[in-house]
């Protein structure tokens, strides 16, 4: 395990800047998640670290050494791809053993066997070692893919949306397992996703990427509660943050220059008594909670509500802001 540092790396494909002046330090033993939509440069960043692409500008150092001239094999990294993660012509066992049998390593077959079985237990696939990899379910395949990275102890694990092709239940399970394994091994891990739940639950620190730029880096708590700008605020929170004009609702104490108010559930107070300024449009029942769709002078607001709050569509309610987030005309946060 080692510290990995990106010094202002940039990569352009044709006219499009995939990664633009990105600097980031991933500390030894840290789990960093890059969060961003499709096309934000997440995968390119991983590929630049792995050496599958060469940066146009900037440097990558792993454990203090500049790896710019090294081939992917020499960089001591492990990569989990989003799909096509297993070699279809090999068994599960051979897939797991593949990195250990590489000419760069040449471990004895006893050593390979020991490591493969240990990792297979860790990712809970030891009962299917002899299966052909194409005979596995999606969840099993991704477990093997993660296992294939774990058989080595590289400087850093790079994971490119490894859970995105799985169904919700499996994703939740593997999320927990992955975090547990990372903690047990104290490994350095850079994980890329567009799923805010994965980022929030697993990361020690989250980096928000947009159009190739790293906008904000911080702990999940910091990113959620203290977003640097509108873009970051919009990436996190379920339901989506409500963006409203400053003078729409009472309770705001906007700093000068503020143009937009960002209000999540915790920034909104709903009362059925008092002077009503909003109307309930629609209620989505999720079981443990309700999504309340509220209309205020043509603006739509979505917020979470206690399922026992006795309102129904058409009811008039009073809505007050409670220390919301303020953003200036350029979208930057005003504090």
């Amino acid at each position: 395990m080692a510290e990995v540092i990106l010094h202002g790396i940039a990569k352009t494909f044709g006219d499009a800047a995939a990664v633009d002046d990105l600097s980031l330090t991933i500390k030894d033993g840290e789990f960093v998640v890059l969060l961003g939509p499709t096309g934000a440069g997440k995968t390119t960043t991983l590929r630049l670290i792995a050496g599958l692409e060469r940066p146009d500008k900037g440097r990558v150092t792993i454990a203090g050494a500049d790896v710019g001239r090294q081939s992917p094999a020499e960089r001591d990294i492990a990569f989990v791809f989003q799909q096509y993660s297993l070699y279809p012509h090999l068994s599960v066992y051979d897939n797991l053993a593949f990195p250990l049998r590489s000419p760069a390593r040449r471990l004895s077959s006893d050593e390979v066997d020991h490591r493969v079985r240990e990792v297979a237990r860790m990712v809970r696939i030891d009962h299917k070692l002899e299966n052909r990899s194409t005979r596995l379910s999606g969840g099993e395949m991704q477990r093997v893919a993660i296992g294939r990275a774990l058989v080595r102890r590289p400087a850093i694990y790079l994971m490119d949306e490894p859970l995105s092709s799985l169904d919700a239940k499996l994703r939740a399970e593997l999320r927990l397992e992955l975090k547990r394994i990372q903690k047990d091994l104290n490994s350095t891990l850079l994980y890329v996703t567009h799923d805010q739940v994965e980022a929030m639950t697993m990361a020690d620190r989250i980096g928000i990427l947009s159009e190739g730029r790293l906008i904000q880096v911080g702990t999940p708590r910091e990113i959620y509660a203290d977003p640097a700008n509108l873009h970051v605020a919009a990436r996190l929170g379920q339901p989506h943050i409500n963006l409203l004009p400053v003078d729409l609702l009472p309770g705001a104490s906007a700093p000068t220059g503020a143009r937009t108010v960002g209000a999540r559930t915790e920034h909104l107070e709903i009362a059925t008594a008092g002077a009503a300024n909003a109307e309930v449009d629609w209620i989505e029942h999720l079981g443990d909670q309700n999504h309340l769709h509220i209309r205020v002078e043509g603006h739509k607001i979505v917020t979470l509500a206690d399922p026992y709050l006795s309102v129904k569509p058409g009811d008039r309610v009073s809505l007050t802001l409670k220390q919301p987030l303020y953003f200036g005309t350029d979208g930057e946060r005003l504090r």
Partner: protein
Amino acid sequence: MSSVNAAHSVVEPTPTSKRIAGAIVILYALVTMIPLAWIFLTSIKSPPDSISYPPKIVFSPTLEGYCNLFTTRTRQTPDYIQSLPPPTGTCDEITRSRNMVIAGPSNYWPRFGNSLVIAFGSTFLAVLLGTFAAYGFSRFRVPLADDLLFFILSTRMMPPIAVAIPIYLMYRQFGLSDTALGMILLYTAVNVSLAVWLLKGFIDEIPREYEEAAMIDGYTRLQAFWKVVLPQATTGIAATAIFCLIFAWNEYAFAVLLTSGSAQTAPSFIPTIIGEGGQDWPAVAAGTTIFLMPILVFTIILRKQLLRGITFGAVRK
């Protein structure tokens, strides 16, 4: 999918339509096999039976065609044949009954051997070159890649025999006329464009991620190619190999033009088999029957890959 659903579905053919389809396939197969059956039957007819009109369906089979194919014979007087010791084998007996004796082996097996060497040699070379070229075109940014691919394809845009005369002159100049090497190079050149195009399609379908994963796992590109790409391209390689082999095995025009002696291939040798008073049709048919066998065996061995290979692109994995 191995499970068969009992319930009738819209996309599943009904038993009746399956039976009709089966009947059509069988009928078609029978029609296409008539020439092959004809060749085989002719090979076990006697020379008079082979040219009788209307053709004989019922006849007494004989190995005379095969005997004539494998031997050269000389005519002798009945008295001389009487004075010989008893015949040593079936062919000896058949030959003597025609007032002839076996003079020695024919050139069939050496020519057949030439065909094997030339066809398999050129197929191996074409597939080898084709695989590497296709991989290069598929994975690397090759300058003018599209133009180069078109250029490679353009070598197939005319019948190869159209360039027969320049090739003939060139081969004479370089001493490649009537050599196995010359024929291997020629057939390789013709086949390599087919191999590049076919294999590029197959390799394009193999996701790059596999090689990238292998390269990250500590393998060089060549090792990744060997360990990861090749095993997944076997279907395509097998299909390509069969197409190349069939061309090289059956090629007639260049073989007649460029080979006459030591490098002569079976297709140009078989028509030269002459009996007394014209073509020895049973011997020609016997030579053809044996000539068909290697392709048959090769195709049967690779038929699983071939089936998947020919339908590639239609079904993903």
